[in-house]
């Protein structure tokens, strides 16, 4: 039996040179071609490339040559390496800033290092003892020499009982490791020490992530006996996001407070604070194509269902309880009722994470409301048995492959946790939306505050056969400042913005796009019900 590899080898042997090298090169080029063709803006691929700092030099040049040869440009390579260069530059700049303090001479740095709290106390006593000793010797004064001795003994006192070496084992438990915004979770850090001596004074601090709110104390101050344990317990909560816990800093201090020894023990963990989900009552969608599984979306085909679809002549085998007696009496025929099949559908949710569409008012962000809406919609559609995918469209494209059920809900919520605003030249407008990701004629739900430039791409999406529903958090009342309510200019600006938005929404509605205009101060179900409560096909 001849297999595929044998055929490839046979073909490669016809060419001059090493056949294995030829095949390897072909595979490499093919890989690079596909990477450039569809994965340049794929979030997962880019994350891997960031971790590996791009390709090795040979494959980087191969990629550039492949792109140049195939498309006569270098945009994909440039997009990848622009991002990588910016990251490397930021890392190096941060390192330089941390290692060099401008405006200080080396002597000043030495003094600052000497005066650090870690060694300040001991240095002060040592300095006084040396000065007294030198003065006593210089002036041959016995009292000064006598005075120097207590200082000298205090300087040497830490040697009397040196800080014992201890090995730490740190375990962190976050229960639960994912929580909803505003619901605290319990963090327990268990430290066990193995050593042969008691640690007399310890300061233990759990290095918590920035932005997290803590109830309780993530620190410990006390002693730990030989083979002892200590535990930090506190409650933590925060706003939507992923919080990384790095580890624990342990500072061991001499009882006299003269020396300190600080160690950092890595114990990484994460806490996911999920966006708040609003329970939606009814969102009626009607994609042109449904899936084969049973669901609640009307499919436009007759079959098993509850909604009346039509009638036809009775054929043997039809259930007798579906006979339409009135129609039969009129036509003098046996007529049976038909019902519309209800099936599951493909729903693609797009979250607009472009920086240009963001509006902030103080600490509050309109994007957070968009995330909340996306989470609520995802939960609703998954609860109805549909297949749901999520696309976060911003600095990069982050695509959660469509799926069903609770597992998919968890994936989508995790993806929303990590969603953040960003800018990219390519994704500045919605016209580069990767429509190939969504099954044809499926339902697309866009959550976006909308801009005037977004009308054309969305109408184009509709023209491609997708059913488009836009949930648009209204930025105008969100941005309105009550302090400027009587300011004429502000009122006029508000009116102009309102008119512009109305025109944008009207143009979209004329193009067959269903738009839900959402004032974020009201619950999401209310405008959804108002816009599509009585909606039928």
């Amino acid at each position, binding site marked *: 039996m001849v297999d595929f590899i044998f055929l490839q080898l046979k073909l490669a042997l016809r060419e001059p040179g090493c056949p294995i090298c030829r095949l390897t090169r072909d595979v490499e080029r093919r890989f690079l071609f596909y990477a450039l063709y569809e994965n340049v803006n794929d979030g997962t691929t880019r994350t891997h490339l960031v971790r590996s700092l791009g390709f090795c030099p040979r494959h980087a040049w191969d990629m550039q040559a492949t792109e140049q040869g195939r498309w006569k440009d270098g945009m994909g390579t440039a997009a990848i390496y622009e991002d990588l260069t910016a990251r490397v530059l930021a890392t190096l700049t941060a390192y330089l800033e941390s290692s060099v303090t401008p405006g200080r001479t080396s002597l000043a740095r030495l003094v600052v290092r000497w005066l650090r709290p870690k060694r300040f106390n001991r240095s002060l006593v040592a300095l006084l003892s040396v000065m007294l000793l030198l003065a006593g010797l210089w002036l041959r004064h016995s*009292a000064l020499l006598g005075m120097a001795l207590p200082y000298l003994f205090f300087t040497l006192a830490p040697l009397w009982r040196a800080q014992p070496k201890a090995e730490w084992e740190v375990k962190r438990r976050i229960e639960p490791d994912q929580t909803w915004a505003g619901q605290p979770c319990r963090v327990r850090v268990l430290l066990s020490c193995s050593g042969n001596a008691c640690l007399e004074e310890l300061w233990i601090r759990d290095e918590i992530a920035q932005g997290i709110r803590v109830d309780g104390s993530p620190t410990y101050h006390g002693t730990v006996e030989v083979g002892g344990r200590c535990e930090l317990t506190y409650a933590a909560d925060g706003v939507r996001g992923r919080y990384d816990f790095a580890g624990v800093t342990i500072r061991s201090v001499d009882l006299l407070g003269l020396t300190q020894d600080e160690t950092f023990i890595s114990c990484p963990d994460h806490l996911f604070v999920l966006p708040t989900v609003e329970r939606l009552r009814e969102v009626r969608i009607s994609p042109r194509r449904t899936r084969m599984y049973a669901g609640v979306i009307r499919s436009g085909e007759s079959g098993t269902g509850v909604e009346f679809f039509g009638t036809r002549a009775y054929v043997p085998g039809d259930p007798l309880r579906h006979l339409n007696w009135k129609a039969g009496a009129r036509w003098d025929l046996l007529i049976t009722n038909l019902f519309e099949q209800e099936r599951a559908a493909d729903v693609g949710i797009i979250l607009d994470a472009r920086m240009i569409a963001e509006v902030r008012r103080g600490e509050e962000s309109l994007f957070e409301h968009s995330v909340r809406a996306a989470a609520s919609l995802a939960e609703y559609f998954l609860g109805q048995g549909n297949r749901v995918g999520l696309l976060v469209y911003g600095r990069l494209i982050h695509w959660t492959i469509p799926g069903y059920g609770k597992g998919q809900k968890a994936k989508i919520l995790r993806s929303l946790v990590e969603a953040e605003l960003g800018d990219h030249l390519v994704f500045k407008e919605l016209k580069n939306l990767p429509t190939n990701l969504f099954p044809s004629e499926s339902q697309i739900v866009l959550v976006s505050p909308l801009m005037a430039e977004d009308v054309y791409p969305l109408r184009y999406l509709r023209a491609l056969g997708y059913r488009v529903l836009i949930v648009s958090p209204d930025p105008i009342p969100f941005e309105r400042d009550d302090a400027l309510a009587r300011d004429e200019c502000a009122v006029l600006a508000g009116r102009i913005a309102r008119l512009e938005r109305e025109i944008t929404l009207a143009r979209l509605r004329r193009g067959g796009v269903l738009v839900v205009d959402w004032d974020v101060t009201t619950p999401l179900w209310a405008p959804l019900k108002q816009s599509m409560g009585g909606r039928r096909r």
Partner: protein
Amino acid sequence: MIRWVRLASACATSLSLVLLLSEAGFGWVGIIAAVGNLLWVGSARFPSRTRRYLPHMILVINTVASAWGALAGGPAVPAVVVAVASLLSWNASLFLERWQDTPLPVVERRYLRRVGGTAALGLGGGLSAVALQGQLSLPFPFLLVAMVCTGLLIIRLFSQALRPARQEHGREDSAVPFKR
């Protein structure tokens, strides 16, 4: 307990400073330094960020004042007492700053033993040095006892310091497997 140690050592510092500087002819400086010490002990009850470096400043001022008094012809014994007592009050205030809530009794006991040993060693060493120079006219038996105690403490200090190194060395030796 440690608050009392600090208070007592601050009082001893003040008293010794007054004695030392009045003997040297600068009684008013001694009184100012003593009042400063007592004020510091009184005000340290109220924690404040500005008072963080106050103990260090008081220690430096006490040291400079006592050295000045000794150089100006004051007696040597109060100078040594000032040095030991000011170190004691400084260290006690550092301890109290770290353990703002009530420290554990075990920790308190350990600290008192440690700081007491070091202060006794300092006082003994300082007085011995002064006595050896003939500035302290003690009868010979007292001098001998003071020097022997100080010497023993010094030997203990260095033996304690060397113990971890010796233990590590011994552990390395015992790690060699014994083969018949």
